[in-house]
């Protein structure tokens, strides 16, 4: 725990330009496919949300029924966008912080191809009715094999690059990236073995699938988002991170106890399982406080920096959403609150804030920083601003409507005399406002893709111009 709290500084030996050149091909491919999956995923969840208003819409088409299109949309987001964007940002951070060029970029490209094949097969599988049914793990068995193989191929360059780092202190973002990469290989293989290959019996399946879903969202995606935040906020504010030991404390608290969260009390599992999970969740309070204090002391509420850089703006908002989402998870795990809000929209809202609010915004911030350096080009600032505001408004609308709807549903259902269908009718209005949020998020994703295509085509034109200039 001796890392000096300095903002990461690339050494002169391996210049950032060389590093970026080595990352160019795999990262471009990862980010572009992530952006495409994001648009597809948000389109699917938007359609699912509209179906709550108009249950008759496309009711004859089995592939587009709510129970298939909603998990398909979420899995597009988690596996198509989430892990690809996260691994792309993670690889870049490992290169920059290790002051070394990316090793094995060809392997990473292969891995990306397999991964995308797996996600495509999986989403098609869900739509034709091959979903496994487990939350956040709906991709069928034939897709999981491709995913795992592709993932290993993507993880090998990360480990090789980390191993080839120049001597020096490790920065917190490096731990978070490595933790995330290690964690996913373990939870994915466990879930694959125990749910798909030789399924465990009875409610143990629920234990494994809840454990998997929580670790995917809290640790794998959570650590990728935190890695980005821990790197970019100190760097762009121009101050060293206040305390690396605090960051290490957060890291170990999250791996030790954050990985326990997500198994609700009151389920038919043995009682101690839910209780242990609640204990672990509540212990995360110290991690959340440590992150908040660490960044408070790093930034010192220097609000002037807020508009300095789009990446910084995305990272600030992502950080705030992480704090809120984690606080909500802790409060929701308490027994009295869980008895009210368990199995309502409340939990859905927490996941949405974690996915769209914290993780996606953290990734956008990082991509807005990394991509211009890979391409030596610039984003369209108007589209960038539009993307930020659309995402922010969308997430706030979605989150608030679902939290309010969930709490209302929980309170009304706690009275035995309110019939379920009456409660549904009176809370659906709050929930339906969330469709507006889904729409804004979808349009935001489209704007992001548009900006991506624009920067690519501008770079292409510039390169063509250069080549023509040299030829003539």
């Amino acid at each position: 725990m001796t890392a000096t709290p300095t903002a990461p500084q690339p050494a002169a030996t391996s210049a950032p330009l060389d590093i970026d050149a080595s990352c160019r091909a795999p990262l471009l491919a990862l980010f572009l496919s992530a952006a495409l999956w994001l648009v597809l995923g948000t389109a699917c969840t938007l359609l699912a949300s509209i179906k709550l208003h108009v249950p008759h819409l496309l009711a004859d088409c089995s592939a587009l029924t709510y129970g298939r299109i909603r998990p398909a949309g979420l899995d597009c987001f988690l596996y198509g966008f989430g892990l690809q964007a996260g691994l792309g940002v993670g690889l870049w951070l490992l290169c920059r912080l290790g002051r070394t060029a990316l090793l094995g970029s060809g392997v990473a490209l292969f891995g990306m191809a397999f991964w995308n094949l797996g996600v495509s097969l999986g989403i098609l599988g869900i739509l034709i009715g091959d979903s496994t049914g487990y939350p956040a793990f709906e991709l069928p068995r034939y897709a999981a094999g491709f995913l795992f193989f592709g993932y290993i191929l993507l993880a090998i360059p990360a480990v090789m690059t980390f191993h080839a780092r120049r001597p020096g202190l490790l920065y917190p973002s490096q731990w978070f990236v490595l933790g995330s990469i290690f964690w996913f290989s373990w939870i994915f293989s466990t879930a694959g073995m125990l749910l798909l290959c030789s399924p465990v019996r009875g409610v143990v399946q629920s234990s494994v699938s809840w454990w998997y879903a929580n670790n995917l969202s809290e640790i794998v995606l959570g650590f990728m988002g935190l890695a980005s935040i821990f790197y970019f906020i100190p760097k762009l504010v121009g101050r060293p991170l206040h305390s690396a030991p605090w960051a290490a404390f957060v890291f170990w608290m999250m791996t030790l106890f954050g990985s326990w969260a997500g198994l609700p009390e009151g389920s038919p599992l043995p009682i101690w399982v839910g209780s242990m999970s609640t204990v672990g969740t509540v212990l995360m309070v110290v991690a959340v406080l440590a992150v908040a204090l660490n960044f408070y002391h790093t930034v010192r509420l220097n609000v002037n920096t807020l508009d300095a850089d789009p990446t910084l703006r995305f990272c600030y908002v992502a950080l705030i959403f992480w704090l809120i989402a984690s606080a909500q998870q802790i409060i929701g795990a308490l027994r009295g609150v869980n008895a009210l809000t368990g199995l309502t929209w409340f939990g859905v809202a927490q996941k949405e804030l974690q996915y769209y609010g914290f993780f996606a915004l953290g990734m956008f911030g990082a991509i807005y920083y990394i991509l211009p350096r890979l391409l030596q080009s610039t984003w369209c600032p108007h589209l960038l601003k539009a993307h930020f505001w659309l995402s922010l408004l969308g997430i706030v609308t979605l989150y608030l409507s679902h939290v309010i709807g969930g709490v209302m549903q929980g309170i009304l259902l706690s009275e035995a005399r309110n019939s379920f269908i009456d409660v549904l009718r009176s809370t659906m209005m709050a929930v339906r406002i969330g469709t507006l949020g889904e729409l804004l998020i979808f349009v935001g994703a489209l704007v992001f893709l548009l900006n991506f295509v624009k920067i690519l085509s501008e770079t292409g034109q510039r390169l063509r111009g250069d080549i023509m200039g040299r030829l003539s």
Partner: protein
Amino acid sequence: MNSGPLLFLGLLFTMACSWLTFVMGPQLQVGRMQPATNLVSQELYPNPYEGVSGQGSQVYRANGCVSCHSQQIRAKSFGPDMAHYLAIRPSTAYDYLYDQPVLLGDQRIGPDLAAVGLHFDRAGLLQKLYEPRLSAPGSVMPSYRYLFETRKITFAPSTNALALPPQLAAPAGYEVVPTPAAEELAGYLLSRRQNVFIYFAPPPPTNAPATNAPVKK
């Protein structure tokens, strides 16, 4: 925290803690669970031979019913689940012994289905799948029209044909019949009862005197 191997060992340890607690722990305790004894009939519960309802669970899984319906009745201390979903007792781990996959669910956009088989008959369930808003106006459940077939009546009307009100009825000479998938799904839902009393879920106490003395006749 500056050495790669140490970082790896630390991750291995924390991961192992989580894995041992939430994967290995439940497996050791309930992974090899055997059927319980039905307190009333002394038969084994649950019964592994459910026939058509087993295939129905695959229809349930494929169409993502778990996106909106849970199948777990929580005890009274977690709210009036039993009153809302008309269940007889809270769910226990035994109820899911032969389910594949086990879909407890995370969210209730629609009601819990753990005891749905106690309160519907086959015709009512099929009608609900075809048009949920007939029996529950304001419901947001999709109409599963693709699980039904509108076909011409060739010889005599099918005994399986849905009884539908005039605004939904098939045109003259046609009838709406459930596909095998719909029949299997209905069979599966009818099998969701959780009404067998076992040691871990005994019948509610009656007003009988608290004594072991034989009842005098």
